[in-house]
């Protein structure tokens, strides 16, 4: 009789409360209160970063110049995800398929990875113009940008 091989189950179910800090606080307050998406520009290389953060990684310079960007932008990368992996924030598989893109908001140098309202591959291509669809009413977290809508001519 082969030796039975047992497994020990354990469910990680813990909570954290993450301090947003001054940069994210300003970002989410502007998003919630004014529907504005704020980025930060490096004083040395002039690169405009999203999300805002304490320093520019290339120059190691603190950044203080806030720049409103978007809400429109250009699709720089895209995919349609089909594999249902477990979403650790919900403990449930994330519903598929969903479209996802790297969006370069007008005025920003970095891109933002977010959902697209399009899941038909045939209707997605680089360079498409997209627009942020904001949640109403906004609550001051990343859910306030629900997804990006492809602007169809």
């Amino acid at each position, binding site marked *: 009789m082969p030796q039975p091989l047992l497994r020990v189950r354990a469910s990680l179910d813990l909570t*954290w409360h993450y301090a*947003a800090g001054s940069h994210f606080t300003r970002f989410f307050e502007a998003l919630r209160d004014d529907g504005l998406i704020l980025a930060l520009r490096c004083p040395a290389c002039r690169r405009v970063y999203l999300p805002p953060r304490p320093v520019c990684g290339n120059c190691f310079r603190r950044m203080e110049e806030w720049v409103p960007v978007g809400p429109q932008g250009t699709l720089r990368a895209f995919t349609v995800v089909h594999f249902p992996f477990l979403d650790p924030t919900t403990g449930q598989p994330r519903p598929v398929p969903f479209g996802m893109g790297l969006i370069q908001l007008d005025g920003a140098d970095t891109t933002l990875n977010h959902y697209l309202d399009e899941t038909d591959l045939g209707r997605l291509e680089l360079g498409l113009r997209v627009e942020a669809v904001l949640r109403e009413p906004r609550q001051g977290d990343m859910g306030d940008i629900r997804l990006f809508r492809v602007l169809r001519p």
Partner: protein
Amino acid sequence: MSEPLVFPGSITIPFSYAAGAAASRFLVALRDERRILGTRCSSCKKVLVPARSFCAGCWEDTGDWIEVGPEGALVSWTTVHLPLPHLPPPPVTLGLLRLDGADTDLLHAIGGDSRRLERGLRLRPVWREARSGSLLDIAHFAPIT
């Protein structure tokens, strides 16, 4: 200074850890035979409990399987009074006990009134009726009265 923005977050992921052949045999012995097994290191001859496939100190494979206990002597204990998500509601007493025939101490829950615990106190395992092949098939060790 305005109220700081703090985001609540949770991580919810199930895990399933392979006990491995040696620990599986140890856990099956708890489940099916209500026996506590150790393994003897082929080099230093210590009887290691819980049973395992090798001795950490000598890094040699263990050889003989030896039943230990079921009774043993309390070595150390602590009664946790904080409500913690990974523990039953407080107070919960965890102890290290040296089972008869073993050369290492077993960690387990200790039952009974924690105020009456003392070093060397003789204990015996209290088995659960429904056993699933887990260290928790022993509900706790209770003082032999």
